[in-house]
């Protein structure tokens, strides 16, 4: 049986194309499972997983927890607000304390880039990165690609524009790596203040005009403006941002083709996209959420099978 080339999922840039294919094939199977009347398989009855969230999250945390429970893993949850982290304990100590309770896998969200990589060098557990600062959010990128594949049949050859705050976005970075690995063309679009100066060296197109970007693409992935990560105002007001980078139905209808709209959530309705766009049949936002569970089941299942070896 094929297996992943890695022991942790720390970022898309550490995966190869075969890994992604394997994850998608496995997710196909689990997507069928979660649509059965009994949405559960006994695969991971002997595995214990700790979800460590050192940063706020609603959907990613729920999605991981549901994925773990549908695989019959034992699950413990931990958020930094309730932990000793605020008392000055180091990350390694916190995690090692939890691992002493015989935990096999750690799903971690953390505000600092590279936190998962750092941890993987210092603790004995399989690590799944659920978002580390502005670095990577690999399961989000996987579920995004999976959703494009589901909607358009294939990712290769497709044109995908990522719109919004690229500078502070782990979703953008993981998506760029994932889409390129599968042969898609990628463009980033946003105000120049929110585009990293050297982003074009990643082999992506750069555009600051939303209409041009939308006319170019097959899929538009609309990112949320991450006010919480900004140390200074990168644009004068939300109103002005929306005027230039918000997608509404009139704009969509005026394009020369029908494009697919995605959003990693949570949506600021009326900012990045209006309600009529979010709820339109061009939007696959809720499919992304459903696919998120299947993708995370696949990732956890594949990593757990390496632990068992």
């Amino acid at each position: 049986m094929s297996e992943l080339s890695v022991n942790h999922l720390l970022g898309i840039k550490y995966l190869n194309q075969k890994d992604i294919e394997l994850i998608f094939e496995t997710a196909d199977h689990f997507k069928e499972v979660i649509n059965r009347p009994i949405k559960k398989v006994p695969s991971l009855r002997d595995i214990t997983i700790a979800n460590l969230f050192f940063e706020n999250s609603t959907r990613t945390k729920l999605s991981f927890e549901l994925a773990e429970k549908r695989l019959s893993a034992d699950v413990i949850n931990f958020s930094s607000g309730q932990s000793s982290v605020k008392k000055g304990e180091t990350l390694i100590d916190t995690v090692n304390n939890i691992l002493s309770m015989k935990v096999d896998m750690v799903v971690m969200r953390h505000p600092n880039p590279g936190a998962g990589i750092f941890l993987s060098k210092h603790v004995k557990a399989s690590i799944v990165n659920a978002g580390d600062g502005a670095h990577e959010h690999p399961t989000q990128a996987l579920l995004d690609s999976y959703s494009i594949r589901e909607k358009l049949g294939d990712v290769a050859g497709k044109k995908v524009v990522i719109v919004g705050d690229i500078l502070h976005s782990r979703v953008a970075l993981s998506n760029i790596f994932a889409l390129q690995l599968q042969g898609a063309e990628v463009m980033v679009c946003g105000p120049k203040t929110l585009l990293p100066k050297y982003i074009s060296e990643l082999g992506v197109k750069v555009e600051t005009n939303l209409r041009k970007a939308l006319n170019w693409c097959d899929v538009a992935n609309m990112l949320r403006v991450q006010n919480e990560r900004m140390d200074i105002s990168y644009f004068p007001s939300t109103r002005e941002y929306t005027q230039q980078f918000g997608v509404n139905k009139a704009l969509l209808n005026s394009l020369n083709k029908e494009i697919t709209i995605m959003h990693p959530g949570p949506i600021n309705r009326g900012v990045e996209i209006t309600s009529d766009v979010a709820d339109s049949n061009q939007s696959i936002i809720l499919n992304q959420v459903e696919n998120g569970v299947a993708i995370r089941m696949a990732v956890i299942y594949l990593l757990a099978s390496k632990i068992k070896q």
Partner: protein
Amino acid sequence: MNILIKSATIIDSKSDFNNAKQDILIENGTILKIAKNIETPNNYPEITLDNLHVSPGWFDSSVSFGEPGFEERETINNGLKVAAASGFTTIALNANTNPVSDSNSHITYVKTKTANNAVTVLPIGALTVGCKGEDLAELYDMTTAGAVSFYDYKKPISNPNLMKIALQYAANFNGLIQSFPQENNLVGKGVVNEHITSTKLGLKGIPALAEELQVARDLFLLEYTGGKLHIPTISSAKSVALIKEAKKKKLDVTCSVAIHNLFFTDAVLTSFDSNFKVLPPLRTKTDIDALIEGLNDGTIDMVTTDHMPIDIEEKKVEFDHAAYGSIGLETAFGALQTIFNTQKTVDILTKGKQRFGATSTAINIGAHANLTLFNPEGKYTFSNNNIISTSKNSMFLNATLKGTVYGIIANNTLAINQ
């Protein structure tokens, strides 16, 4: 101290004996005789070492220990052992202790504590009270105690008027002002060089512009005020160009570059290893090429190890939270020798002394013996076992270096590595 050094190749472009293999007889700390095959008089101890080379003692313009206040990083005693073992006979010691060294009594403490050592310590005083960047420290009073320069270590003076006044005021007594080249507003929350690597890693970038703007500002100020300015640890190609222009205008400016900024690019950061977290950050190959050219054409006056011991508690954490700095004394020679030949390496390591008020003497008969002993051959992988610093935060761990240091003879004292 009386000693006879046997068959040592002398590397000193200012010496009559440059590149000659000679015996060197030292009596009471002075070079009495340089010749082939000197007979040992009065049972003086002899030094015979494999492929022994001797050069004038090396100098480092930016070294940090931790005493007082951060003894867990490094003590003065062990720090001086590290310096001697690494071939440095003279070091300028930064004021970044706790409390910071910002008064006559602090400078006196450093002078007293480091007296009678093989290594000569030149204390640097803080430029502002408490290194807070608000009010000038008592610069003249510190000068009378032995301070050779004034520098708020790694803390930029953001107020241009304060820097203007510092340059004007210190000019009264020929004081050397240092200004850390960094415009903090442009740094923001940046932790590494802003470039493709920072983009890939999601780490906040520090644009080279943040350094260049401050260098340009300080050169404008210096042109207005007169006085003596040293810009420590430049790292970008444009900074080199700016200083080159200023020197053409005959401004009294010198600058240094950290050895690690010549050795590593920011590409090493992909492992998120916090030992590579330094200020100024590691930059690109283009910058390295310009820095090396600047060293070759004299725009850059000296290199420094920018030796900064950090204990493991402040390094073995998430990259964003790790403290800045790397130790560098122990790897200086071996790293430079992978970039330059031995003669050039020695030239570089002996430059800058006069700027910091120390004398530099060539290896000649009658001169005071201030020597570094080394073997320029032999490649090796630098590892934890090579580190005698209290803190082990070396970014050169696992790097291939060339040449080893045997020790120093200075201040009438012999310090040879066992």
